[in-house]
């Protein structure tokens, strides 16, 4: 399905540097934890939205969680051509924050389904680079 000869979609994507800066979040679900009020955030924040503290530390979040609600994408965007019809969901991770992610290797998606993180291809950026990131599959 994916090959270097794939057409490069004409998309207004962020620069390669922007993608590089988001890599910890995309590959390892690194968010932040507030050292004053213990709130956990994803994506990372510089200021805690709960208590306004700037005293935050990075934290690699749990790679497992459960589905809160799901929908199904029938019209993949440019850059995702050829992608099969796929469900996607809000997933609440075991240590609190929620993420929006595509689901792979699942049969039926129901709220409460246990899922685990995997790394999959996201899309080819307009600079030609492939961006990878988290997706979730049924927990094994």
């Amino acid at each position, binding site marked *: 399905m994916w090959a270097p000869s794939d057409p490069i*979609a*004409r*998309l*207004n*994507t*962020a620069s390669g540097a*922007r*993608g590089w800066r*988001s890599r910890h*979040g*995309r590959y390892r679900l690194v968010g932040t934890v507030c050292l004053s009020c213990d*709130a*956990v*955030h*994803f*994506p990372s924040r510089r200021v805690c*939205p*709960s208590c306004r503290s700037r005293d935050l530390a990075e934290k690699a979040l749990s790679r497992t969680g459960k589905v*809160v*609600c*799901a*929908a*199904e*994408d*029938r*019209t*993949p*965007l*440019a*850059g*995702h051509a050829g*992608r099969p019809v796929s469900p*996607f*969901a*809000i*997933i*609440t991770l075991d240590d*609190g*924050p*929620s*993420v*929006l*992610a*595509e689901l792979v290797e699942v049969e039926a998606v129901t*709220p409460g389904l246990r899922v685990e993180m995997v790394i999959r291809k*996201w*899309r080819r*950026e307009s600079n030609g680079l492939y*961006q990878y*990131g*988290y*997706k979730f599959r049924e927990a094994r």
Partner: protein
Amino acid sequence: MAVQAGIRMIQSGAHRCVLVAGVEKQSDTTTTADSMLSYVDADFEAPAGFDFVDTMALMHARYLQVHGVPEDAVAAFAVADRWYARRNPVAVDAGRPELTTADVLGSGWVSKPITRAACGRACDGSSAVVLVAAEDAPGAPVIAGIAQATGPNGLAAKFGFPGYDGDIVRALPTALAAESAYRQAGIDAQDIDVAQVHDCFSIMGSLHLEALGVFPAGKAALAVRAGETALDGRCPVNTDGGRIGLGHPTGTTGINVVVESVRQLRREAGERQVRDPEVAVCQSMGGNNATSAVAVLRREPGGA
């Protein structure tokens, strides 16, 4: 928000008369993909393949799940919009036949549970309003209150954000902006005679109506299906056809809702005219339900 900036210019005393214009020319400035991707989170949502139809499909799914509302109730918003739009000569759906909820539900999935006919209609367009201080235009409709509020744009991030009570079924920025605008105007939700809400998808119309307090949480979609937002209903909504029927030229939608409110208050809406409206409320949203502006307009006694 542009209207709010215009009001502040007059209030500050720097200007006496301000023209606020919005323009959208989606057809030649961006690809559809670009415009669809520019609303969602640029680091973790857009590159992962999510556009705003997808994020709003999740709000739709969550609404059905939390409130146990049938799908045809949510679809009824598009039906109501079409009723008004076919009577509005400048709407993209002007003169088109009536829709039924079955038509909406059978129009094909975009992002399940959102169907094609439940989507706002991307188009070009423009609209403008002229603002002056109330004493300079006696009798003209007045903007009695206006406010704007912002929350996180990332859809999943709303779950842990203070004020959201861990969910996405509430349009929190709209609720906060409405509270402030109503306070400035000295009204509450029961006083609204006609409302314009940001129904970029059928579900969003219901979410905003609930946030405006027109209907209680979980009841807006059912109320729309029951005809409470129709011209003879309790609170007519989106009397120009809304984003689904009139069209959604995004760059000017926020001004267009003000234009329609004024038209209603001046009683110039023709076939779509609500009976004797005194208070009109309009609302506009940006991003993933991330920012929202609410304005309260009032007809001056004896005004035109």
